[in-house]
């Protein structure tokens, strides 16, 4: 397999390093804000084009790696440059490429150090795509950490009032999880080396390592420490509201739409297949935490007065749903989880985009100071309504398809969990309707800028809206792509 595919054009590497090239060009042309803008847009569009091209041209229904690359890298430690893309990675990369275009467009008027800003957004894209592609554990870890620095700067430099606090909190929280992951990776590598004499960090090889239950549990916990913080699963979510709230619009879109997904992806790609026994034992705990998070975050969201915080907590709640689906451990629930990840990326990304637009017009994010937006800006409000409904799981819109699949899957294996989770949808409706009511209806608070959507904003919102409707009405193409890989992952076997 390697021999055959590695001769072909290295599409995955292209996808991975293209944004970094854009970064370099941005830094070279840092004197001109316009050049940087167009460079960033061009690069992200190119990445989107390549990934859509790949999605169309590849035989996506098949199991196994659609594309695979494997090269020598650091022989001294047996680290290899191994990239592989299956259906799940493909979907997540499509989501990444799409949301990055949105992130660039929403920051079009960035006045504060635009070159650096776009350069960091592009580095972040390389990091995220790398996480979704890497199959060598050290390579994965490198990309995993590579996401931190640009995000730290995006929050810390371009964020709102308490940006430095939020940036440091984000950095420390996520890094503390990852360092445990690093220790576990090295220990696993050493154990595998002692058993077989082959020192390698390749995922496929390390899966064959024989571990006793205690070892497996310890490793599993170390891996999960990194992933649950990123997801974030209750009670490890406390960094998220601050980071989301203080981040600039593009940062929030990337955080909610993409960074959280890397945590879930890490679980299904690495933690579960490497340590299946420990994973199986942990499922009830995961489910319990997911359920608590689902309700707790929804409840907190209901009590918030900052619209960005409401959406931030709604992310925690939705990701609780995703984890619940994983914990149910069957095909339907997993398909629902992956689908919900994609839908959540689009809807929450869209909501953060809308919040940025509202803030531009009203200069506030406080629900008390907002209201009656429909009267002055009907178009904007209509889109807001659509995305809020999508987020609360209205049938026919994006999140519904994922949630219903998760619920069906959960009911078939653990009816009790399912029964509790249904209530979560009700909670989601409560805080989302409150958000809608406070912002677009209610007594009118005069926005100081009454202009409705401009052309660039239409350009951002229409694709998002189309995608939300498409994912809600006809998710079949996405489900087809993920079916075979999920089957393989559930059987514990990877190609």
């Amino acid at each position, binding site marked *: 397999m390697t021999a055959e595919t590695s001769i072909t054009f290295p599409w995955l590497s292209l996808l991975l390093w293209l944004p970094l090239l854009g970064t370099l060009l941005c830094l070279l042309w840092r004197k001109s804000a316009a050049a940087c803008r167009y460079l960033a847009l061009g690069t992200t569009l190119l990445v989107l084009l390549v990934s859509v091209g790949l999605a169309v041209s590849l035989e996506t229904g098949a199991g196994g790696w659609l594309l695979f690359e494997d090269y020598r890298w650091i022989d001294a430690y047996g680290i290899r440059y191994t990239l592989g893309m299956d259906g799940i990675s493909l979907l997540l990369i499509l989501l990444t490429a799409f949301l990055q275009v949105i992130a660039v467009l929403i920051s079009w008027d960035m006045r504060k150090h635009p070159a650096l800003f776009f350069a960091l957004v592009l580095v972040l894209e390389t990091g995220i795509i790398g996480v979704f592609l890497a199959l060598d554990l050290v390579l994965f870890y490198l990309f995993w950490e590579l996401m931190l620095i640009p995000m*730290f700067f995006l929050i810390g430099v371009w964020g709102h009032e308490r940006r430095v606090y939020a940036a440091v909190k984000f*950095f420390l929280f996520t890094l503390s999880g990852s360092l445990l992951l690093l220790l576990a990776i090295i220990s696993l590598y050493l154990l595998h080396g002692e058993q077989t004499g082959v020192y390698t960090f390749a995922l496929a090889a390390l899966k064959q390592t024989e571990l006793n239950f205690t070892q497996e549990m310890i490793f599993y916990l170390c891996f999960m420490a990194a992933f649950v913080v990123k997801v974030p699963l209750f009670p490890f979510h406390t960094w998220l509201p601050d980071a989301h709230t203080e981040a600039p619009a593009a940062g929030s879109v990337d955080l909610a739409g993409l960074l959280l997904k890397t945590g879930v992806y890490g679980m299904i790609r690495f933690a579960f297949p490497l340590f299946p026994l420990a994973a199986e034992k942990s499922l009830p705990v995961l489910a319990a935490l997911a359920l608590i998070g689902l309700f707790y975050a929804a409840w907190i969201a209901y009590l918030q007065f900052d619209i960005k915080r409401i959406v931030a907590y709604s992310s925690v709640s939705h990701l609780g749903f995703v984890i619940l689906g994983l914990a149910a451990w069957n095909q339907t629930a997993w398909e629902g989880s992956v689908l919900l990840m994609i839908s959540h990326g689009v809807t929450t990304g869209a909501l953060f985009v809308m919040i940025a637009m509202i803030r531009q017009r009203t200069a506030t994010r406080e629900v008390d100071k907002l209201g009656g937006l429909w009267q002055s800006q009907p178009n904007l409000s209509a889109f807001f309504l659509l995305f809020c409904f999508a987020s609360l799981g209205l049938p026919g819109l994006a999140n519904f398809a994922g949630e219903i699949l998760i619920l069906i899957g959960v009911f078939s294996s653990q009816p009790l969990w399912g029964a509790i989770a249904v209530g979560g949808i009700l909670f989601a409706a409560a805080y989302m309707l409150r958000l809608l009511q406070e912002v677009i209806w209610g007594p009118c608070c005069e926005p100081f800028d009454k202009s409705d959507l401009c052309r660039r904003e239409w350009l951002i919102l229409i694709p998002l809206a189309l995608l939300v409707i498409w994912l809600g009405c006809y998710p079949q193409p996405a489900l087809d792509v993920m079916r075979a890989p999920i089957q393989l992952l559930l059987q514990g076997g990877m190609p």
Partner: protein
Amino acid sequence: MNLLELQSLLPQLILALGATAVLMGGAWLENRRFWLLCGMLLALVAALCAALYEPPLLEVAGMYSTSLYARFCTVVWSLTIAATLLISCRYADLHCFGGGEYAALLLFAAAGMSLLSAASSFVGLFIGLEAFTLVLYILIAFNRTDNRGAEAGLKYLVFGAVATGFLAFGIALIYTATGSFHFAEALAGLQLDGGLRPLGLAGWAMLLVAIGFKISLVPFHLWTPDVYQGAPAPISGVMATAAKGAVLTAFLPLLAGLGDAAGEIKSVLWLLAILTMLGGTFAALPQTNLKRMLAYSSVAHMGYMLVALLIGGEVGGQALLFYLVVYSLATFGAFGVITSWALADEEIQEYAEIRGLGYLHPRRSSALAAFLFSLAGIPPLAGFFGKFGIFHAALRSGYTELAVIGVLTSLISLYYYLRPIIVLFMQDRSAYQLRSGCREEFILLGSCFAAILLFGVYPGPLLELVALVLP
């Protein structure tokens, strides 16, 4: 001493004789920049010579080895000194340093450090160590108008003298026990039934104290922040990198020579490593001065390197040398940025003075941020693979507790590495425009930056080189 022996010491001779020539010439011709560049050229020639010229003898006068390991160290220290001379160009102009003396002293230091890492007998070790420590006493207080520099020089002198006393006493005890100065004989003679003889143990204890002072291990580290703060920034850079590295590299074969008898020594080192990692990290947390923070950070990093040192063997040695190189690049670069920011009457050290500087001097600030990230061990910078190597070595040799403490301290260390970065980039501008950097500084900082980035994404060649030169 015959001609062959002199030939074998060619790089060191180039450094020492070149230093003498520069010193003499400097007295006649007062052209600062010329002598600095001259010194840099000499150091580069010495490095080139050590790298390419195959010495005819394996050991010189029973005191210095000319192994690949020694040659590698000579190359690294000579390059460090060359870099120091290059980055000092404008700094020396600002502070009116005597060009000849400055260059000559640094070259002498390079010769001393190179002899120290090449030592194969205790006498050679003593001579090499004293040769560059003496030079440093002068260099620390080189800025004669600066009281803090004088204080730092005096402080280092007092601590250094005590350390020298311990070293001499330790060597004397070992000599009493074995009747030999030569490493191989002395270390073999110390062993008795797989352990150390009591006299040898006492001697080693003295040695450890001396080394603890020199590379500032906790609890012998108290001089470090004051001296680094008072010394001129380029000299602090040398002290934090090459001066400590030379001692560590000299110590590595010494410990390896003990073999299995090193059990007791290793348990002391184990304790020192833990104390140093924790002590350095926690002491660095409240710092608001860049140089003091870097001083404590260097203490903490010595702790990591001590872990690799005590593991020893191929795995530990490789991790140690790799770490030493990437740590030196980053630390030297950080001091290089401070050098480049220096004003005529003072250096910019306090965090309050660099607020918002990141957008006034983007290149140097980004370089500083990259050096700090590398020291914190964040990929894709070289510091990550340095730490990776050390944790790998520790886990492989069963020192799980050291690896866990190392991971925890790296996490905590992030706080003090992030602080200057936050101040530089995320706070509102209160800083005034400093001088724009000159070409030499940009060349040097650019190469340091490129190197830590390169070794961060492609550490393979350096790892192989390091594995090749290990004794």
